[in-house]
């Protein structure tokens, strides 16, 4: 499919591209549907509950029913809300979340675009979503939403930086921003994967990623016990569904990114296991990461906003910077 990019743009190409984009969107939507189901089941079992088990066999249709319910709900916009921005905000949150998936390679030959600035593209686009959240919080004309939106802005800016800097070590080792190349450079068994030499970067990446996703213990923008629901307190129906959808699509994106950057992408952990297709390994690693995210949600309390800032700027950022220095020194010596 990569060759098609060099041909002249024709209606045939537009059709092909649109078709694959639609396929990807369906895959992501199915993932989101069952990620929510999986999360509720996993957390249910951890909390001595059963989780959803009423709608469909084993509760498999629970999320479908929830989404349908959200879609047929009345679309309410508060009278004093800033109408255009209120409508725009969920879209701004939602669109980048899908756009970032374009650069992620799922297997050797399974990817949408092999951009040379893939990592940069991801970081740049994903930070656009923050604008949507702040906008939603502001446009709602609700004090809780405003506080949630402000928190979110502060948090995402503080954690975007360590997130990107923690990846710099990986980029230095492979010498490229291209996600496909980064993944293929780790081929040949788990001792070649980046999480071993870049263990500090990996840990910083995980913490910053959880924070980027606004998940426990960093779910301050929507801290239920303090801010009721945070920035989306005034949203209902499908606009609310868009916020939720974007959140889970980002879970998909971050888990994929972690797999590609640190866990060897589609590479088998031991070389003799290579007969199993790469996509299976990708899905396994990806699913473990997603499980990890759900697991910590069931375990941790929420961190406080000032502590969150302290952790981001005083701990994670210096750690990520030190990681870069160590990587550079090591590379110079090893050369």
């Amino acid at each position, binding site marked *: 499919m990569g060759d098609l990019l060099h041909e002249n743009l024709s209606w045939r190409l537009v059709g092909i591209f649109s078709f694959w984009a639609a396929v990807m969107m369906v895959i992501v939507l199915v993932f989101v549907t069952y990620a929510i189901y999986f999360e509720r089941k996993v*957390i249910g079992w*951890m*909390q*001595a*509950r059963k989780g959803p088990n009423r709608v469909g066999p084993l509760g498999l249709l629970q999320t479908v029913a929830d989404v349908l319910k959200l879609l047929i709900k009345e679309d309410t916009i508060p009278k004093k809300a800033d109408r255009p921005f209120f409508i725009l905000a969920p879209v701004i949150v939602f669109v980048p979340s899908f756009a970032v998936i374009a650069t992620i390679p799922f297997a050797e030959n399974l990817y949408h675009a092999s951009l040379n600035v893939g990592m940069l593209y991801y970081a740049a686009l994903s930070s656009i979503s923050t604008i949507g959240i702040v906008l939603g919080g502001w446009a709602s004309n609700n*004090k*809780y939403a405003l*506080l949630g939106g402000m928190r979110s802005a502060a948090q995402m800016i503080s954690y975007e930086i360590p997130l990107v800097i923690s990846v710099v070590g990986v980029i230095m080792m492979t010498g490229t921003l291209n996600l496909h190349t980064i993944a293929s450079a780790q081929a040949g068994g788990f001792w070649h994967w980046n999480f071993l030499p870049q263990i500090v970067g990996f840990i910083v990446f995980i913490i910053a990623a959880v924070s980027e996703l606004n998940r*426990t*213990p960093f*779910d301050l923008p929507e*801290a*239920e*016990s*303090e*801010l*009721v629901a945070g920035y989306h307190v005034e949203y209902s129906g499908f606009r609310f569904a868009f916020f939720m959808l974007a959140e889970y699509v980002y879970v998909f994106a971050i888990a994929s990114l972690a797999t590609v950057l640190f866990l060897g992408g589609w590479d088998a952990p031991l070389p003799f296991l290579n007969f199993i297709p790469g996509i299976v390994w990708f899905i396994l690693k990806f699913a473990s990461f997603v499980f990890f995210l759900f697991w910590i*949600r*069931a*375990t*941790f*309390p*929420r*961190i*406080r*906003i*000032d*502590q969150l800032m302290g952790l981001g700027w005083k701990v994670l950022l210096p750690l990520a910077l030190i990681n870069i220095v160590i990587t550079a020194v090591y590379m110079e010596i090893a050369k």
Partner: protein
Amino acid sequence: MVRTEELLLNVGPQHPSTHGVFRVVVKLDGEVITEATPVMGYLHRGTEKLAEDLTYTQIIPYTDRMDYVSAMTNNYVLVNAVEKLMQIEIPERAQFLRLIVMELQRIASHMVWWGTYLLDIGAMSPFLFAFRDREQIINLFNELSGARLTYNYMRVGGVKWDAPDGWIDKVRRFVSYMKEKLEEYHALVSGNEIFLSRIKGVGKYSAQDAIDFGLSGANLRCTGVKRDLRKDEPYCIYDRFEFDVPVGTNGDCYDRYMVRLEEMRQSLRILEQAVEQFPEGGEIMGKVSRVIRPPAGEIYAAIESPRGEIGCYIVSNGKDKPYRLKFRRPSFVNLQILPKLLVGETMTNLVTILGSIDIVVGEVDC
């Protein structure tokens, strides 16, 4: 030039962390609280006024509904005051049953607090663990009185129902089960770094402040003041049992947390002894006339509820209904320190501090 403004935020009465219909109006400078005004009374039912038209036995169900998380101790505070006024002898078996249900209730109440407090701080699982274990106590009470929350179990002169066969064994099994679970609670939560950083040093006050505001229960003991009515002014048969009164040192949320968890362990200790000494057979009601008519006079009798000193003040003019009845509700009194604690704290700490005071709105508003 940027113009800044204070934000007036109305927290409650429908807010997930105000534990019922309690409301705080806060002035926020950014996220820092500059002024906090608690507003209460949304659940006021006029229990004290209603009691003036009810016979003493009829008032007992009303006490269930004051502190609905700890109905057994509330039952006791009323019947205890009436019994003292009438100087009634309580049979041994009834005394033991009362003590056992009150201590079970203390554990159940602290478990509700523990679960909801962790929920306030943002951890979901402890809440479900606490309610899973509390369910066992509820089932024990259900077997005893037929109700799960508002038991209406005690009567002037004794208790309404005797323990069914094997009930005491079930309590014994629960005590050993709960001991394990308490260790699990500690392992799961008490050492968590995020949790500790959220509650250590937050909502601090001195022993003098606590006494000045009339605080009682864990809110007082967390400052190091060793006052527990079960020890200091023993009622029921508490003087026969061995237990410690846990105290804190700093008077912050962390100390209140630790004091309450330790109280659960001490309650288990009392229960262990009580179950061993539980008398075989015997009456469960003392000799009380069918119509309860205390002699004219006044009495104030207080006990240690899970939330602190709950007292009942009765003015009787010799009729079968009280002339005036007044409850000293610990939740209400403990809440008075809240505005002082909140100034200068963030929105997040509002929830942490309010939760650590452990109020039940039914009791605050009465």
